[in-house]
């Protein structure tokens, strides 16, 4: 899986989990301001990402993740995929 595929999957999952239109889920989109996601939504979204990619994302690593792009980077890093 390359980074582009990871990004596509992450965006699809987030759109579903956060119940927002897929075109709003861009790398620059901010979870709180642009996607109206609260802390509970983020926990649920991370559960779904962990499930999909078979990775473990501890809470403290999510603390700095504010945008979709940062979430994609985190997942890619876990999978050992670089840009």
């Amino acid at each position: 899986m390359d980074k582009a595929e990871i990004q596509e999957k992450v965006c699809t999952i987030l759109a579903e989990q956060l119940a927002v239109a897929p075109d709003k889920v861009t790398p620059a989109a901010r979870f709180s301001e642009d996607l109206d996601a609260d802390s509970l939504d983020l926990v649920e979204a991370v559960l779904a990402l962990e499930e999909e990619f078979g990775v473990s994302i501890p809470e403290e690593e999510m603390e700095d993740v504010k945008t979709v792009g940062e979430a994609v980077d985190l997942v890619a890093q876990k999978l050992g995929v670089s840009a």
Partner: protein
Amino acid sequence: MPRRVVVTGIGPVTPVGVGVTEAWDALVAGRGGVRPIERFDTSELPVRIAGEVLDFDPAEFLDAKEVRRSDRVSHFAVAAAKLAWRDAGEPSVEPTRTGVLFSTGIGGLESLLKQHKTFLERGADRVSPFMVPQLMPNAAAGHVAMEFGFSGPNTCIVTACAAGAHAVGEAYRYIKDGLADTFIAGGTEASVLPLTIAAFSQMQALTKNRDASKASRPFDKDRNGFVLSEGACALILEDAEGAVARGARIYAEIAGYGASADAYHITAPEPEGYGAILAIQACLTDAGERPEDVDYINAHGTSTQLNDAAETRAIKKTFGDAAYRVAVSSTKSMTGHLLGAAGAFEAGVAALAITNGLIPPTINYETPDEVCDLDYVPNEARKADVRLALSDSFGFGGQNAVLAVKRFEP
């Protein structure tokens, strides 16, 4: 001087229909909503029928995200509240003077069970962060308040099969005492699930009758348990003066409320109707009415041997000779038992009986029982001039609530 309280909107979401027209038309036609269960496999269960709300799409009432984040019990509540609010003509209100009292018997059990399964099979770190707000019984009242932005008194009364009646009764008192001007008061339940079928069945509470359309038969000699149902109903209650001033269509007045406990057994009713009598008497006293002036009683009438006999005794002891002149019907013969939603829906039915001059029947009444010898309005709706109606609700836990619903005379 205490204020008067009127019903200006009704929002049923029930196995016999969604919305006033559909639900009321079914009731007066004697059309039941008990069917073979469709939402899950029943092949291993002792009971395979229930009153389910089918063709219900929560997305018609809530945005997609809230649908995901909340349990079916809250979906029903928000739907009922919105239907009732529309039915009341969407009055313009002061949000801080508008309260919500939404009860349930059980809460978001389906979500709890789903997460418990995840927890057991896959571990603590797979449990959804939404489980707590989904399962808590007061979630429905919270969701309704959020949908409307109403920030007046907001609570939830959990009294099993009497919960919906307590909600209407307590909301009536808030308005009567001047603590709020408008209330959305209702009950909701979404517990038709394999586990609850098993559990109520182990109590011998559910009918084992396989014929869905004949299963719920309150006051009939061959009754042998209730039918588990799901749904919700909300009533819009308003200060009468305000409702008249805004030209609201008024169904009826909530004229009295009586509450009591059997203090006897955690599930069985006191056989002589002790607690039920106290609640009926307290309700009539509150309404300033006499037993002989009651035209109609929407009975608790669950179709269990014990309830229907005890309720009949309670009516006879409270009403004396007048017991044989009052029309008593159980709409649970058609809806099944909506548990925490029952009392709110049935108070709405009492109001509709007054408005329409028509009493819905007790269907499946075929064989008279010597211990149930009142006029149960068997099988066919009856035209009647109903001025004063009571709605009885008696819960597991021994908690009783009775409402008096009266034609509104300004």
